[in-house]
């Protein structure tokens, strides 16, 4: 059994991939919390497609993969911010127009030059063999930068994610916060492309955070759980990719989906258990509370002498 885990580690490409997927999983898990709570799932999907278009354009111009993908990804993020500024065009429409147009540009170039197809398969679906030393360096730098930024911007990010208008009134520079968040999101997506693949990034961002949300009602705990779930998803998904010889993006996302189903089951069982736990006795009085786990003290008031009242204060 242990051999199953140790044997792939003998190969350098697997060690690279494993380290990369660990960092990418944690990175996507951390950023995913803000994506899910801001209702921005579509932007992760869109920006990865725009970055793919940029990577193809960069390849055509003999530029580095990250230069092309980064430039086009950031340009897309800025354009989306600009188009949606006056509120006339909603963000989902702007994301649909800008990022699909950039992706279409990449697809058009690939379809003209067939030899490109092989080169971009890793970027589309994730490839266990595709992680180079350069990829590892970029992923490590982006992970450190993103985690540091989120750590020091914890307060304005939390406030503007919860209530953007109130945050602005209280003096948070919400426009700047949004811009910085778009920037780190774009960096994270570009860094994740070769491991998870363009087509799977949205799921890698959303699954850990959604799973964590079902396990906790605390924001800080959700950040920690989501980062850990993302890291586990990356590592186990990469082992599965090696074992079943399948695209790494697909195995990472499939394992994440399994974790999500498990969290759903835990939530269901927890609610059922807590509901039953409220059928109990006080002296001669036996009663039940037909409510779930999220009830406050005011729902359940015990008075001296064993009498009890229920209901909202």
């Amino acid at each position, binding site marked *: 059994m242990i051999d199953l885990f140790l044997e792939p580690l003998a190969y350098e490409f697997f060690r690279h991939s494993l380290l990369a997927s660990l960092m990418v999983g944690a990175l996507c898990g951390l950023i995913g919390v803000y994506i899910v709570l801001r209702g921005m799932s579509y932007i992760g999907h869109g920006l990865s497609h725009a970055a793919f278009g940029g990577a193809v354009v960069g390849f055509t111009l003999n530029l580095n993969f990250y230069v092309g993908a980064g430039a086009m990804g950031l340009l897309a993020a800025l354009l989306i911010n600009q188009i949606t500024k006056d509120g006339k065009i909603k963000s989902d429409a702007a994301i649909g127009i800008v990022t699909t147009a950039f992706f279409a540009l990449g697809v058009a170039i690939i379809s003209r030059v067939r030899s490109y197809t092989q080169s971009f398969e890793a970027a589309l679906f994730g490839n266990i063999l595709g992680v180079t030393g350069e990829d590892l360096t970029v992923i490590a730098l982006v992970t450190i930068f993103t985690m540091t930024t989120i750590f020091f911007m914890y307060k304005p990010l939390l406030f503007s994610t*919860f209530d953007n208008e109130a945050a602005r009134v209280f003096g948070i520079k919400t426009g700047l916060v949004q811009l910085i968040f778009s920037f780190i999101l774009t960096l994270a997506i570009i860094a994740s492309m070769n491991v998870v693949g363009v087509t799977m990034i949205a799921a890698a961002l959303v699954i850990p955070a959604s799973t964590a949300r079902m396990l906790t009602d605390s924001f800080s705990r959700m950040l920690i759980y989501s980062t850990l779930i993302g890291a586990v998803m990356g590592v186990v998904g990469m082992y599965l990719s090696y074992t079943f010889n399948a695209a790494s993006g697909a195995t990472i996302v499939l394992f994440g989906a399994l974790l999500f189903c498990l969290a759903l089951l835990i939530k269901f069982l927890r609610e059922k258990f807590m509901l039953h736990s409220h059928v109990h006795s006080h002296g001669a009085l036996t009663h039940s509370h037909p409510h779930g786990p999220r009830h406050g003290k005011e*729902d359940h008031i015990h008075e001296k002498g064993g009498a009890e009242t229920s209901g909202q204060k």
Partner: protein
Amino acid sequence: MYPAVSLSDVTVGYERKTVFTNLSLEIPVGLFAGIVGPTGSGKTTLLKTILGTQSVFSGEVRLMGHPIDRLPPGSIGYVPQLESVDWSFPVTVEQVILMGLYTNKGIWPWPTRQERDKVHDLADRLGIHDCLHHHIVSISGGQRQRAFLARALVNSPKLLVLDEPTAGVDIKTQHDVLHLLGELNSEGITILITTHDLNAVAAHLPWVICFNQGLVAQGKPREIFTSDILTQTYGGEIVIIEYQGHFLVANKMQLHLEEHTGHSA
């Protein structure tokens, strides 16, 4: 002394449609005022203009003598409409209140001991200390209103603005909230609220601003709540009933309906 709020010739709107034009309004320091008017009258737009979240076509808005963007952080406390809050968001009551201190200096994500003490003292005063560690969805309507009021108060603002603080809560909670606001006002905080509840304004607020796409009238409720002014503000015919020194505001159509059916509408 500068007024708490000063609007000079302000014109505001969305795209090509103006909501109000050339509005000049001053709210002196220490006032507790309620903005009333029908739905779509521009009350919330006026509030957003004062808060600086609504861009103005022309004119100038100043708070405590400063343009809004030069106001020191934490000068304004704001309580949004509770309906606009995402109640499924994973935060506790304590975390919500702490947000009111997020513009203070300090780069670490966790609160200082002084900040935590401040939150606990305020929660104690507002009667929500027991639910500080509860998720926001699990507390009652009155406790929610108090939690957001605590967030607005925790940085000791000079101006407190509340959007519909009496909406969606029962009469007892309405009374408690307005009574609490009265207490805060007596400590020197200027308070501005929007509300649809004319009777609550008549009973609790010392100043009322009637607004319908512009200023209709402002003054003490006893002077302003006349049939003429309220009819002018709301469009429909409004009747004022005096009872034991208090007065009640009623819609004439509603009274007719009650006369004919013998039931409350």
